[in-house]
């Protein structure tokens, strides 16, 4: 740059925006393009994984049994549900214990995966404001990292599920491998949902209070503790305009039911597993794509606004 031209005149002579443009300065905190954002996230993959593992490890670090609780917590959960819904209440739709208990435990754990992803997504920005206000990183790292934490939690739970399935005489076959694509699709779906709710929750922290009720309603409408189709079609006092089998189809196409049923299909033998239609895989793929991509784009659109308020 020449020393004699007006190029670097003192700021009072030039609008500041022009001065910035002249020297190639960029707006601080501006939202990157979508491909640029994906690249930034990929660059932070080590942080995303380390953060999820750190969160998981910190969870039980004060307990005397330490990380054993990772497995103990889901086991106790399964036991409580068995006690209440297996022994005390009916509602098992003609399944014997050896089919009902794996059915129940898979349902509870798979739904918990989605449920916890949503809840940690809601709080991912508002609960980490200190981090958001102190360091620079693509904000989507937080909800994605917390979804990964839930995935690791689920993998511990799946150990219990496998033990229970074996214990009730559902023996390993090649079908068991189908658990992997089912859970992978669910992870994409959950992450999209977590991103979606992370943006909502950053603007409206009250959602953290409201969501447990919404999620519990969703759980009952998805056939976690009873076979959905059986319950809907058995009930004979529907008003005349309701077509029970259509209603059952709609409920069975909802994402929570879809992923649950696929894992059941993969791991269990018996009549319920055989009744899961193949179209469920299409639903699983569709939900993962729509919610995964949609949630990501929706979150990215507000990238520069996280951290205010």
């Amino acid at each position, binding site marked *: *740059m020449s020393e004699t031209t007006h190029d670097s005149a003192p700021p009072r002579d030039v609008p500041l925006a022009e001065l910035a443009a002249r020297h190639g300065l960029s707006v601080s905190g501006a939202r990157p393009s979508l491909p640029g954002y994906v690249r930034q996230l990929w660059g932070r993959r080590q942080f995303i994984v380390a953060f999820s593992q750190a969160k998981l490890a910190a969870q039980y*670090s004060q307990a005397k049994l330490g990380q054993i609780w990772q497995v103990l917590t889901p086991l106790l959960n399964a036991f409580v549900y068995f006690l209440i819904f297996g022994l005390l209440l009916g509602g098992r739709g003609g399944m014997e214990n050896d089919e009902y208990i794996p059915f129940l435990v898979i349902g509870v754990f798979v739904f918990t995966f989605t449920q916890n992803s949503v809840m940690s997504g809601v709080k991912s920005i508002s609960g980490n404001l200190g981090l958001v206000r102190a360091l620079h990183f693509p904000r989507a790292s937080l909800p994605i990292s917390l979804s990964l934490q839930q995935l690791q939690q689920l993998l511990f739970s799946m150990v219990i599920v496998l033990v229970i399935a074996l214990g009730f005489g559902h023996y390993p076959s090649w079908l068991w491998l189908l658990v992997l694509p089912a859970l992978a699709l669910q992870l994409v779906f959950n992450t999209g949902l977590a991103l979606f709710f992370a943006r909502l929750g950053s603007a409206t922290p009250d959602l953290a209070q409201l969501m447990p009720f919404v999620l519990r309603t969703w759980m009952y409408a998805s056939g976690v503790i009873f076979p959905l189709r059986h319950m809907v079609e058995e009930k004979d006092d529907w008003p005349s305009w309701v077509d029970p089998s259509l209603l059952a189809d709609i409920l069975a196409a909802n994402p929570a039911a879809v992923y649950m049923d696929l894992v059941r299909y993969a791991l269990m033998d018996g009549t319920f597993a055989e009744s899961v239609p193949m179209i469920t895989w299409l639903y699983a793929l569709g939900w993962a794509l729509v919610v995964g991509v949609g949630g990501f784009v929706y979150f990215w659109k507000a990238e520069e606004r996280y951290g205010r308020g």
Partner: protein
Amino acid sequence: MAEQDIPAGGADEARIPTVIADDLHIVYRVHGGGGRGTATAALRRMVRRERGYKMREVHAVRGVSFVAYRGEAIGLIGSNGSGKSTLLRAIAGLLPPERGRVYTDGQPSLLGVNAALMNDLTGERNVILGGLAMGMTRDEIKHRYQDIVDFSGINDKGDFISLPMRTYSSGMQARLRFSIAVAKEHDVLMIDEALATGDKKFQRRSEAKVRELRAEAGTVFLVSHNNKSIRDTCDRVLWLEKGELIMDGPTDQVLKAYEEETGK
């Protein structure tokens, strides 16, 4: 009121701006502030549609403009709550401006890693987590790990780095945080005073480290209530009061006016 046109040393020509703030306004929105905190009071406010149950706004930075150049060390002074730390965060792009813009050359970084650390984890894991949070890679961290631990002096009194951070004394925690924070190289570096803690020996060590960082970084911002450390390290000073830029100029001039105003 703002005397923006006083250059801070060096010729006007051929200076390369690294940070430009253009009429910057920052507003915080606080939920649940104001009014009584009871449920009935909140309900009454909702029914009467009174303002205040929603949120309160805090206008922390009001129309600040300045240009910072490469090689400058700029001090920020002003009483508590005058908007110094907020201004730094806005420059770093961490707080979205209400109005106005900040232009920067590269990514300015705030010397602060506290928020990424977890007290339930060991010091060792926190070094890695903090480094990753600042954008370092695992290899870089592995490379610098021993330096970080040595600089913090955590292991001087036995193997503390493998204990959870919550078992550290507050001084030890602060030292580890500082050591992690300074492990990375920065283009535009911003230092908030709160970081420089620990005992006399560690303070001397961290002051030396800050000077070293200043030599490496393009531009340094320093928030401090210690006029001596501003005088020692900065060649230009911005004086903020109630979010407004009162004065911008060479260190001696601004500090003199500041000291007269505050009656020191």
